[in-house]
Every structure is written in C-alpha cells, then in structure tokens.
C-alpha cells in the first residue's frame, strides 16, 4: 500500500516546476509565491471556511435569483442582474476574494473562488463573477496593478478581459485592436486604442476593459468604458444568462498595465484561472441538474408508479451521479493547484478539470431535459437555461477536446507524425 499522493508526474513528463513555467508567478495576490512544488499533495476536500462561504452565497441566490426571475431577465434589455452582483460583490465580498488585503481584497484563493462559482453555476446566476472577479482580477494581479484593483475589490468597478469567450487558454491577443497615435492633450502614459473585439463574456456590465494588443511590445491596456470612443453591442447569445457582446474602440483612452512578457504571462494566468474556476461552475451546474432531476422522477408518476423506480431511469441517474463525483475531484484538484500558483501541474490540473466538467455539465443538462420528458422541453421549465449555460460553458475558455489535446505535451502522449 502506498501513500495517497495525488500529484505524481507521469513517466516522461516534465517533473520540475522550473520547466515551462507557463503563466509565471503572479506579482502579488493569491499564490504569489506559487511555484509548483512536485512533492505537494493537493487537498481535494472543502474547508470549513469554504463551506461557510458556500452557505452565504447559496442563501443570497435562493433569495435573489430564483430561476423564474433569471428566466424573465433573459428577455429584458438588462440581462445581467446589477443589483444581485452588487450584493454579491460588495456585501458578501466575492469581488475581492482574489485581491490581496493590502489592496482592499479578502486575500483568499482560487479554492474559495471555485466554491462561489459552483453556487453561481447551480443558479445559472446572471452576474459577471467569472469575468470580473476571476479572469480580469487575475490579469490585473499578475500585472502588478495597484490602480484598479482597490476599486474592483470594493465592488465599485467591474472589469472584463477583452478576449473572446470561445478562445482557448493558449490564446494570446485579438489582432483586430491597434494602438493609435496620441491625441492632443494626452498626457505621458496615455494610449489610444481602436478596433473591434467580439464574443466577449461578462463584458456587458463591465466598467473597465482589459485589452491585450499585439503591438511591439505586446501590451495589456486598461480602458474605462466611461471614456469617449468605447461602444458595446449586446449579441443575441445561446446563453442569455451570460450574454456576450461586441466592443468597439475608436481612439479610446487607455493606460498600459503590463508590457512584453509580463503582459503575456498575465493573459495566460487569467485564462488558465478562468478555465479552472469555470470547471467548478460546471460542477455546480451539473449537481443542480442531477438534484432537480432526481427530485422530479421521485414525484412524476406514469404506469401508476414513480418513473424513478424504472431501471432505465435509475441507471442513467446513477451514471450521472458517478460522473459528478469524478468531476468534483477534478475541479477541486484544479482549484487547489491554482491556489498554489501557475506551474505545469496547474496547467495539467486545469486541463483535466475543464475537460471532465465540460462533458459532465453538458451530460447533466441533457439528462435533465430527457428525464423530465415533455415538461423539460418547455420554455416554462428551467432545464433549458441549464442546457444553454452548459453548452456555452463547454465552449468557453477551451473545449473539452482542446484541453485534452493539450495533454499531448503535458502528459507526453504525442500526436501521430
């Protein structure tokens, strides 16, 4: 019998934390000291603090985001729930989880952020937690920002990294944005950006856009939406609980938050953290689909018995429960390694989690519809909200296929010549 180590490296795989240290260590904030130590054993359980945080978020969402309200909001002009987001961000403190205490945040880690994401997935809540409090925040932390993070931590400002949701974690920049010449009256350190980026998630409610520009040097720029020359156009999206938009910049005033390698590392860290936390959102979604469906098949009667008594249904739900237990282990592994920093094992953990959770969430939503029968196919039932979120999430921040494909290098399983 050997010890339960869960971080062994595969034969032929780079075992050292120094090799291809992917996104690099964040300048400060969660996991600032975080080099992956190969001997580390991941904690795959939930801590007491995490369980308390979950309870607070769930209570808020049960009260403020019942599915009928979420569904109704998708057909309004205000698809994001600003009131709910403000409460979650400022009062519960979710906006500043990943921001150091010195900048007004909670100095927590991706483990806590992942638990919040689970609950938001359970409720398909229309708030920009992933885009602002995880992805944009990680980018700013990694870039060493001190100007915007205090505003983000307090919930006064919401930010979005201007990279299409469908981009994978190896994405570098959108080539459609360029640096313009300075305008009259611009001060030293002011930049001007022009261009269009489309398919952005969680950018609609954002007051700050973090825009990568593939110039020389590669740069990461912050643009306040309130400045002139910034336009947003909502897109009719598959998942209207996380509505995408297009951003148009026309000589918009910008500040550079990072340049060169630092900017590239900030983008890579943000996308990796986003994919890892999104896996936990998918886990929460899958669990809610399972719970709802199990409850329904116990109530729904056909042939004078609950349909949940038929083996054809029991076995499908048993398989789904098994898939959820597997997905949970992967999601926790990713959250725990993200909390430790951005080394090769973190990249591996996120790839495994995003692949497993994408498949499981989609399967759960599809089973929810099928096992609800006719009612599950109606607009009046929440199943379609879950299906649409699950499908969109399975594409966002790298498909399951793309994440598995990254194992060719991570696990040394090379593709055919």
């Amino acid at each position, binding site marked *: 019998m050997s010890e339960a180590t*869960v971080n062994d*490296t*595969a034969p032929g795989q780079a075992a050292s934390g120094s090799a291809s240290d992917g996104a690099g260590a964040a300048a400060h904030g969660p996991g600032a000291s975080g080099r992956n130590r190969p001997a580390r054993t991941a904690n795959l359980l939930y801590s007491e603090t995490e369980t308390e945080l979950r309870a607070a978020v769930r209570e808020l969402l049960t009260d403020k985001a019942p599915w009928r309200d979420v569904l109704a909001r998708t057909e309004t002009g205000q698809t994001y729930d600003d009131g709910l987001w403000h409460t979650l961000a400022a009062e519960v403190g979710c906006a500043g989880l990943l921001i150091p205490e010195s900048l007004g945040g909670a100095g927590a880690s991706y483990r806590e952020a992942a638990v919040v994401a689970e609950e938001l997935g359970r409720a398909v809540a229309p708030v920009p937690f992933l885009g602002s409090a995880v992805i944009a925040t990680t980018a700013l932390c990694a870039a060493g920002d001190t100007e915007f993070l205090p505003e983000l931590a307090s919930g006064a400002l919401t930010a979005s990294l201007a990279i299409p949701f469908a981009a994978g974690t190896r994405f570098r920049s959108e080539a459609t944005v360029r640096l313009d010449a300075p305008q009259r009256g611009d001060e030293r350190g002011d930049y001007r950006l022009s261009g269009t980026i489309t398919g952005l998630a969680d950018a609609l409610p954002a007051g700050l856009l973090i825009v990568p520009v593939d110039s020389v040097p590669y740069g990461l720029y912050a643009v306040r939406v309130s400045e002139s020359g910034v336009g947003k156009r909502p897109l009719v999206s598959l998942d209207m609980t996380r509505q995408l938009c297009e951003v148009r910049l026309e000589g918009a005033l910008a500040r550079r938050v990072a340049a060169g390698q630092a900017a590239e590392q900030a983008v890579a860290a943000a996308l990796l953290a986003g994919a890892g936390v999104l896996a936990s959102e998918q886990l929460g979604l899958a669990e809610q689909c399972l719970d709802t469906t*199990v409850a329904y098949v116990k109530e729904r009667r056909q042939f004078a018995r609950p349909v949940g008594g038929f083996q054809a249904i*029991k076995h499908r739900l048993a398989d789904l429960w098994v898939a959820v*237990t597997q997905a949970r*282990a992967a999601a926790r592994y990713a959250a725990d390694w993200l909390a430790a920093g951005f080394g090769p094992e973190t990249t591996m953990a996120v790839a495994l989690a995003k692949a497993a959770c994408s498949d499981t969430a989609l399967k759960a939503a599809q089973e929810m519809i099928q096992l609800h029968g006719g009612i599950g196919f109606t607009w009046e039932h929440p199943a379609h909200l879950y299906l649409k979120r699950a499908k969109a999430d399975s594409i966002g921040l790298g498909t399951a296929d793309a994440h*598995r494909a990254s194992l060719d290098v991570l696990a040394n*399983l090379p593709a055919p*010549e």
Partner: protein
Amino acid sequence: MLSDQSAQGGNAPLPDADALRSQVAEFLAAHDPGSTERLEFLRARFDAGLAWVHYPAGLGGQGLPRSLQVVVDREFAASGAPTNHPERNGIGLGMAAPTILAHGTPEQKERWLRPLWTGEEIWCQLFSEPGAGSDLAGLATRAVRDGDTWTANGQKVWTSSAHMAKRALLVARTDPDAPKHEGLTYFALDMKQPGVEVRPLRQITGEAEFNEVFLTDAQIPDADRIGSIGQGWTVSMSTLMNERVSIGGNAMPREGGMIASAARTWREHPELRTPGLHDRLLRLWADAEVARLAGARLRQQLAAGQPGPEGSAAKLVFARLNQEISEFEVELAGGDGLLYDDWTLRRPEGANFFGRNPGFRFLRAKGNSIEGGTSEILRNIIAERVLGLPKEARVDTGPWKDLPR
C-alpha cells in the same frame, strides 16, 4: 460511522509517524530480518502490534488511524524484512479479516486473525452459486445443525484461491421456511476435509483463477459460526462492502493501473499512432487520471472522518476504464493484437488485471464489470441508497422454499 481516531476511545495521545518509526526500529533491532526465520518474524511482528496498526491491540494492531499503516509498511520494506505475501491472501486480508473483526467472537479473532495475517492460512469466499449470482440472498447451499456441528451441502462457484485455502467464508441457508434474507447463516469452513471438493473453473482467458467448490456433508463446528443464526445476510453485506473497497479503491500513482502499458506502448511505438487512436488515448488517459483523483479524494474524506457514498462509484469507473483501455491497447497493437501469449490452463495465485499481454488484459477486464457486484447491481445500489430512488417491485417475498426457481 466512527472515524479511525474516534474509534480509539481513550485519551492517550496518538503516536505520530516518528514514534511508529522508532517502534519499528526497536522491533527490527530485536528481530534481525536477516537471521530470523520468516514465520517467526511475521508472528513476532503481529504480536508487537505492527501488522495492521488500525486493528486493536492484541490482534496485530494498536488502534491507530489506518493512514499510519503506510509508515510501518515502508519501514519494514526498507529493512528488507520478509512480507506476508499479501497478494496470495487477498480475500483473507481484504474481506475475511474485517468481517471477523466486525462480527467474530473474541475467541474467533484470537484463533484466526494471526495465522490469516502471517499467510499461514489462506482464506477464500464461498458466496456465489450457479443459481445465485446477483441474487445472492437466493442461495441454496444448506447447512443443517445436529448438536454442536453443522452439515453443509451444495455447490459454490467463482471461488478464487479455493485450491490454496485453509478456510472459507461460507454463507448457507439454515432456515428454508424464512424469507430469503432471513434464513441465512455465516460460517468459517475448514477447506481441508473430505466433504470439500475443489475443481478449477476455466475462464475466457484460458486460465483458471477461480474454482467450483462442491460441499458434500462438509462439517462445521458451531464454534466456527460467525454472527447469530439467521444473521448471515448482514454479515455478508459487510464482507461485500470490503470487497468493493478492495476492487478499485487503492491508492495509485499517476499512470498506475491499466493506462500504464497503453501509454508506454504509445510512447515507444510512434509507427502505431493514428489520429483516431490519439483522440481515444487522450480521453482514456484523462478519465483514468480523474478517476485516480476521485479515489484520492475518497481516501481524504475517510481520513477526515467524512465517509461519503463515493466509494460505490469507484468500482463502476474502474471496470469501465479497464475495459475501454484494454480494448484500445489490443487495437493499438495492430498485428500483434491478433496474437495471444498462452491458452493453456494455468492456475495463477491471485488476480492480475494488468499482467501478461494486451489480449489477456482485454479478456480479463470483461470480468471487472461482473465480479464483486455487476455494474448493473452497483447502479441499482447507487440509485436506491445514494439517490433515494424507489426500489424495484419485489416478487421474491415469503418463505424461501416457496419461491419459484
């Protein structure tokens, strides 16, 4: 369920890993593994409470958390000490011992656990019958009492190690008039007696890892009954729970298990690679790694005193992955996949799911979704006990003797 720690009861501080290491060092100083006779060494290790530290004092342990066992095992392995050959007595160590510990009398524990642990007495399990597979509680082997002795008659099947075993865990029907779950009693049967005949049962791999066991007026002293008369089902359930933990519940390194040889072949033979196989391998590798993490999470839950129902998922996933990976491996092997190493009837000492060649692994894996509870039965268990879905309507109620067969 009590955690290992709370089960200990007393207020004495737990010895930590360092204290255990020095205990082992003292033991090794007193019993030189190089010069002490093997059995003498093992018996002394048992008596020192260093056999299985989570067992009670006096029965080979010290009532410590199970997680500390690895410390002891590692120290003994490093010293080159003789082992008890756990691979030869999987049923004994994995199933019989916990059953005896939970349901045996003090006298039975005293009598059986030491020779079981040292490997002097191999155990096997006489549960399944030709007419009682998934429906184990329908079994028909009869045991009839006469004074202090029971006489057993019937046929058992799928018995690994029966040809080597000194003792067997036996479930037999003692009251045919009772409903089927209530008329069973659990015994320890002496296999070395005239009333027990063991025949090899050849399986699709060509080898005979299992046996059929015929009981013809086999004798069992009442002192070898485990649990009360009519409690056989309850005792059997605790044995089977341990079986499912022992299949698919072990700690593994990354790329342990069935995926190891598939990944190695992939790396060593670029000429065998195709895009379709690559996609399958990436899926299987990722699924195997996630299953490994789920196992690690389950053990963390147990160590934290939060046992969850996730254990029943482990065997289902293990069976599916073993089958899919071994199917992949035979296909990857191409022309070599058309060859087999040996069809002659072999008698292996234990189950080896990952051994021999890809063809053997492919065939042996077919048993993984049948042995130790079929995948279908496991899904029923998850659906009913974890998810709380309604049970199947039963038609097998009333006295066992009146059920249609």
